């Protein structure tokens, strides 16, 4: 078995506030293999973006990584010096943000932004960097790249801008791209294109993708594996096909029901009653218990840890806890 490209173990991100410490990401573990696409899905506030930010070391204060470790190709990248982290960002992990309209500095030409990024990481000449940038823009599907490279961001449409963002994220040839809701802000008509471009261009370069989204549909079409997050915890992780077909966690079940099926009636989508609790009011036991249809006493008291239910599949739910001698989960 090959070594994972990225390995996250027990990641916990906390925000101290005056009403106590909020745990935005709670004991999250997963791996990403080289070239793999991992989908991370969940509602807003489930901790998916925070996980992405934690990996690339961009958690805003006063938030902090309280526990766990993040390894990239075996070496720890959490808690390393800012300068060491800078060599990771962009060069080894690229990042794509949600809103292409705000991701680009409005006062800089596209060429400046790409060339600056390339030359920050790679020892090549200005002309070479520019050539590379034009090639990259061409690659992501910007027509007439040679001419348009000197335009300002506001001269591009939203879809085109997200292509530029993808080009920027990939320009220093990282091994992993974290795409945080890359299509949410875009017009539905261009969403698929952007996903395609991203997927293709990463595949060409052998880069793995961590695709963060709330849209199960996108995951279904793109990802190899999926991790479902709820209230800062991974509730289920496994190959996409398996999870869609056979979701185990009651939350995942509801989530999968929300994927519009071809010919399906939008109004008959399965809905989970209620909404995700605020971080300040996560109930005891399983975070999902107030909304769960299959809740039982244990769920209200004890917190479930991920349980392997099948090869490559883990679910954090007491339903799948095979009765043990003491009947209690590990603390």
């Amino acid at each position: 078995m090959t070594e994972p490209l990225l390995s996250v173990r027990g990641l916990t991100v906390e925000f101290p506030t005056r009403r106590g410490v909020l745990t935005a990401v709670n004991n999250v573990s997963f791996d990403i293999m080289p070239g793999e696409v991992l989908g991370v899905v969940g509602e807003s506030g489930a901790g998916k973006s925070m996980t992405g930010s934690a990996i690339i070391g961009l958690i805003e204060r006063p938030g902090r990584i309280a526990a766990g470790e993040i390894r990239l190709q075996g070496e720890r990248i959490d808690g390393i010096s800012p300068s060491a982290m800078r060599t990771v960002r962009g060069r080894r992990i690229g990042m794509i943000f949600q809103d292409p309209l705000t991701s680009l500095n409005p006062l800089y030409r596209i060429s400046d932004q790409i060339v600056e990024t390339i030359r920050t990481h790679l020892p090549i000449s200005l002309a070479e960097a520019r050539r590379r940038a034009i090639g990259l823009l061409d690659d992501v599907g910007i027509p007439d790249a040679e001419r348009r490279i000197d335009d300002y961001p506001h001269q591009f449409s939203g879809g085109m801008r997200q292509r530029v963002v993808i080009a920027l994220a990939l320009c220093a040839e990282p091994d992993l791209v974290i795409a945080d809701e890359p299509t949410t802000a875009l017009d539905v008509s261009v969403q698929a294109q952007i996903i395609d471009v991203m997927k293709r261009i990463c595949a060409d370069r052998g880069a793995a993708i961590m695709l963060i989204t709330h849209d199960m549909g996108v995951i279904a079409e793109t990802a190899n594996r999926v991790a479902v997050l709820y209230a800062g915890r991974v509730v289920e992780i496994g190959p996409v096909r398996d999870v869609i077909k056979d979701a185990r966690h009651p939350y995942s079940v509801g989530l999968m029901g929300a994927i519009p099926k071809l010919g399906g009636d939008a109004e008959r989508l399965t809905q989970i009653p209620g909404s995700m609790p605020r971080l300040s009011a996560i109930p005891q036991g399983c975070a999902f218990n107030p909304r769960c249809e299959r809740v039982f006493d244990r769920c209200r008291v004890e917190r479930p840890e991920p349980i392997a239910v099948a090869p490559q599949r883990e679910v954090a739910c007491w339903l799948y806890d095979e009765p043990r001698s003491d009947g209690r989960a590990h603390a």
Partner: protein
Amino acid sequence: MTNDPMTTRQIEPVIPPRPPGLLRQALDSDMFYSWRNSPVTIVATFTAAALILVALLAPWIAPYNPFNPATLNLMDGFTPPMSEGAFSDNWFLMGADHQGRDVFSTIMYGSRVSLFVGAMATLFAMTLGVGLGLASGYNGGTIDAVIMRIADIQLSFPAILIALLIFGVARGLIPPSQQESMAIWVLIFAIGLSNWAQFARTVRGATMVERQKDYVAAARIMGVHPALILLRHILPNVLGPVLVIGTIGLALAIIEEATLSFLGVGVPPTQPSLGTLIRIGQQYLFSGEWWILFFPAVTLVLLALSVNLLGDWLRDALNPKLR
């Protein structure tokens, strides 16, 4: 805005809020929390409160009435701090000025004048600015254009210049025998008129936003009088920023008053404000009677600083994003 498919149906929050008492609520609020956690703000609050209280109560708590000729002895002039007058039994904490007045007491009375002028001017500016801002934002069109253009012009001139001009014009219009009794009102008018534009701008912006909202539209369709709409629905929504501008405006007005009085176009020296006291005191800077300048100056700076700090904190507390 992201539109999560999962949140389209809302249920009641899991934990129902307890119904707290008003004081409890206040103490538990974010405002109070941020106040309690800022020692500087706490100190500023108490300083400002103390100064304001002292000013309000001056006639009752000042050791002497510096404007009562009966208790005044010119021969006590220039008595240094913490000593007894040369020709009376009066004891002067902060010394006596060139007229034998107790500096401590004149500061108390002076703060009163300064605060009165500052507060009245700010109130005037606030009333004018909020009124025009509401009118401008609610009506739009020509009224808005005219008011905002005037506000632009107004904003491009420093307040002190406008106040000076108004003062100059007033001097030309009011007969000499009335000038002294009118001086303080002219001052209030001048300072107030030079500070209304900020209020107008802010209120206008907020009004335009509120005006678009459905409930306002509904009220309009139902034929509710515009004045009532403005008062009931729009005004409460702009109070926060108005409060911030008002607080900072008060500090500005106090400084402006001091500057005008320093330039000799303020209140008469027999009813001195802090600025007048400083103008008088600076004449004795070289001759060694430092207390005549020092104490009023420190009081003025403390007053302006504490009010400024409060304003600063208020702005941050009401709009945490700006921190």
